[in-house]
């Protein structure tokens, strides 16, 4: 199959889905207001984008997102690298991550709110709980990928470095880190996807401000076109982020033979 043909099949699948979305409400398959046709939703997307309130909510959400993801990168990557190189640490931390893995991290936002609410004003407790939930969600893919990346450095690379006279710190910085980079970057791609749904999930559960709250508010007041429009925007943000990330990594890490 040529690349063009393969691509056109994929595009066709998306177009058929979008076509159904447009047709279903118009032909009465979806009879009520709950599913407006695609064209109306897209029109509403435009309105939402021009809404100053929405834009300030996006700013708030972006701040939480960056804080949560940043926290996960700052903790997860060094922790994973250390786990990859120190068996004791790995044995110690891996079971904890395995316990955390199946827990729906978004659901932790409520118990977190409880615990934090006793110690700080509720506004700050909510803010902290949402950031922690995003960080927890991203922590696992980042830590696991960094662990594998650091553990699977070819021994002959480290041996060559030792023979040439590189000490342990230099080997860590100039051999282990770059050798683990591809895996870390792959982990970060997964974390990016996790971060978006953790953000919106946490904001839907603990409302107040943010894109998730804006979405829920539209639902509360019965503006279904707006509900769909915000959902579409969140999906596009996730898709766009992933595409930009993959493109950037491919261009920036020219030496890497694989793909993110």
């Amino acid at each position, binding site marked *: 199959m040529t690349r063009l043909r393969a691509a056109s099949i994929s595009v066709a699948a998306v177009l058929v889905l979008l076509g159904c979305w447009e047709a279903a409400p118009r032909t009465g398959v979806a009879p009520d207001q709950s599913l407006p046709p695609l064209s109306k939703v897209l029109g509403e997307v435009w309105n939402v984008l021009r809404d100053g309130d929405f834009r300030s909510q996006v700013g708030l959400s972006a701040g939480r997102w960056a804080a949560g993801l940043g926290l996960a990168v700052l903790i997860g990557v060094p922790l994973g690298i250390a786990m990859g190189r120190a068996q004791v640490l790995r044995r110690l931390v891996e079971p904890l991550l395995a316990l955390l893995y199946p827990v729906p991290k978004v659901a932790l936002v409520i118990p977190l709110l409880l615990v934090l609410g006793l110690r700080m004003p509720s506004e700050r407790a909510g803010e902290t709980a949402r950031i922690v939930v995003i960080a927890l969600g991203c922590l696992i893919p980042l830590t696991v990928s960094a662990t594998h990346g650091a553990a699977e450095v070819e021994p*002959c690379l480290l*041996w060559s470095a030792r*023979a040439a006279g590189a000490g342990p710190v230099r080997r860590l910085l100039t051999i282990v880190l770059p050798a683990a980079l591809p895996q870390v970057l792959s982990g970060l791609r997964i974390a990016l996807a996790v971060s978006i749904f953790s953000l919106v999930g946490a904001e839907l559960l603990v409302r107040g401000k943010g894109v998730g709250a804006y979405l829920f508010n539209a639902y509360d007041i019965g503006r279904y076109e707006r509900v769909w429009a915000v959902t579409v925007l969140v999906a596009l943000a996730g898709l766009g982020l992933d595409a930009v990330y993959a493109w950037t990594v491919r261009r920036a890490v020219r030496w890497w033979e694989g793909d993110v």
Partner: protein
Amino acid sequence: MAAEAAHPVDSARREADEAKLRLSGVAKSYAGRRRGTVQAIGGIDLDVRPGEFVSLVGPSGCGKSTLLYIIGGFIGADGGSVLCDGREVSGPGPDRGIVFQEFALFPWKTVLGNVTWALARRGVSRKDRPEQARRLLSLVGLDEAGRLYPSELSGGMKQRVAIARTLAMDSEVLLMDEPFGALDAQTRALLQEELLRIWDETGKTVLFVTHSVEEALYLSDRIVVLSSRPSRVRDVITPGFPRPRTREQVLADSSYAALYERIWAELREEGPA
């Protein structure tokens, strides 16, 4: 020591002083996969003289790589000792460079970067590095490839870079673990010739693992045949082909066929390890 030095030096003593590498009773066991231990190396004694080109051949799995790693100081032996220039080997050091079958280049560095990195470790000043790196790359026949990454190179070019990077350490001993084993026949022949030229120009002491009898005969001053596991030195062959030599001369030498047959017969007898 002083008392000893006062005695007349007997021939054994002189040989000890002259050995670049001296292995005595080197043995190594690994923990077995299920239980017990697997003795890989049974006890190897070997002297390599300065500037000598020695090949190691032996059944696969008999511990040739293990032996090289022990000499490199990357893993420890269970018994015996390895001396390099009369000093006990206790870890890796820039006096012993190593070249692996799988090249072991740093994929995140360019060709030039790989070589420059080794120069930097040796303490070559930042200003002198580019010039020296270019000279080394030219020595291995890679004048044009400096800015490429390893992923953009053929197997033969990768191994040339690996040799240049090891030469950058300027170690007097070169340990090579089946360096041409992953290359096609033509590239392999070319690199063998270049290795002989480099060896001739630099005067390194080379310990070269191969499973190709032809390669061993073409390159070596001496060929050490190891037995199957637990391995010992089974035979040492000194082909004595004149140097500088060409492949044609070696192949046409009247003793070539007999030596080839002798080594093969020994390897066949040892069977797989």
